[in-house]
């Protein structure tokens, strides 16, 4: 009888449920789950693991997304229907706002420089743009303008970290990391930015605008700058010109790196 019982106890061993092993690997960040999410650019793939959101990508189909994710991250991307609470609660808000907010982001594998570029870029408000050179100055590497462009081109989480808000100082939009270059324009238009007005201003060599009532100068798309009425607006080609006219830099958009 005992032998029988021992045999039957051995028979109580079962397989682990499907997906359990993957769930462990995703939780520790050695694999990723992904879902699709609507954005102004259409459906995008969003990958995440226990450390945070690891990728936002447009790709024709699941296979090509999974293949590209593996090449970029060296980990498997596994489709799922379930988004863990700590990501679900903030994901759609982050996409809509174009800012991580409280959404955890997994930036492992990036250099300190790339991380600094992305974190600074993440603070640019919706509907506003800044030149590449501004990001470079803000992170204390004023000479690294081109490297800033490269870092943004490799932004693993576009839309959420709004690299679309960094443009060329001549007012043209420059490169974009997510699919079609026109996507940059689409996102900025969706945020309510008057791109033609901004480009027209920049092409005339105007980098800053100021108000003669406050004596403050701003980036042309700064939320405070946009409140300036035409009657009180003064245009400046650079910092020197603005200072000479007795204006100080805006503390919000920081047209001059501290």
């Amino acid at each position, binding site marked *: 009888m005992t032998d029988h019982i021992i045999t039957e106890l051995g*028979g*109580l061993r*079962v397989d682990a449920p499907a997906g*359990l092993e993957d769930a462990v690997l995703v939780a520790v960040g050695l694999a990723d789950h992904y879902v699709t999410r609507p954005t102004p650019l259409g459906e995008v793939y969003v990958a995440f693991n226990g450390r945070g959101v690891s990728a936002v990508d447009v790709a024709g189909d699941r296979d090509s997304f999974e293949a590209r994710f593996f090449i970029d991250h060296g980990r498997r991307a596994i489709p799922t229907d379930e988004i863990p609470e700590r990501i679900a609660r903030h994901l759609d808000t982050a996409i809509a706002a174009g800012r991580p907010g409280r959404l955890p982001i997994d930036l492992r594998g990036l250099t300190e420089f790339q991380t600094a570029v992305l974190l600074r870029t993440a603070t640019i408000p919706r509907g506003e743009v800044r030149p590449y050179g501004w990001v470079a100055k803000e992170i204390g590497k004023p000479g690294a303008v081109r490297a800033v462009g490269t870092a943004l081109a490799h932004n693993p989480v576009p839309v959420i970290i709004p690299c679309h808000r960094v443009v060329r100082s001549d007012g043209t939009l420059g490169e974009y990391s997510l699919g079609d270059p026109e996507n940059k324009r689409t996102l900025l238009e969706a945020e309510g930015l008057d791109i033609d007005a901004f480009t027209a201003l920049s092409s005339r060599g105007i980098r800053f605008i100021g108000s003669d009532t406050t004596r403050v100068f701003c980036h042309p798309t700064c939320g405070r700058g946009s409140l300036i009425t035409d009657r009180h607006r003064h245009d400046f080609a650079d910092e020197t010109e603005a200072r000479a006219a007795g204006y100080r830099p805006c503390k919000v958009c920081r047209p001059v790196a501290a």
Partner: protein
Amino acid sequence: MSTMTADTLTARLADDLDGTFPEVVRELSAGLFSGAFRMLGNRQDAEDVTQEALVRAYRALGDYPVDRIRELRLRPWVWTIAANLCRNRLRSRSRRPQAPLTGHDPIDAGPGPDEAAEHSDLRGRLADLLAGLPWSMRTAVVLHHVVGMPYDEIAAALERPAATVRSDVHRGLARLRVAADTEEQP
């Protein structure tokens, strides 16, 4: 898991945690899940515990010096974590009134349809009877006879002397035998 495999696995784990950990998960998850399932009598709880134990193991390994990882006895070490999680879960469950402990809950698909035919009544009853054993006997019987761990590994996992584990297994089996031999369920 043979000693040989375990040795090389911990050596590789020490050298390359991220590259080797998926193998650890593959190696241990079925045993962890089966053991937790039979200790807790609930599939969902067992799944949660298995996942949590492996995640905690990964985080702990990340903090351990290489030499300590090399010397680890992997399965008993992970089972120390898992058994504690099982015990905590039972305690918190006993504080919240819930469905009674049962070895075959409604979503337990069992071994698969073709094996189901030879699935004895005894097996199902044993799953229920395990839940009635005192914790010390239940853990020892499950780890030895369901998971298939030798006494010394169980002793390490449960932090009890091997002689105690052996006696827990024997006393647990004796109780199961008496209960299973009884025609009517109490």
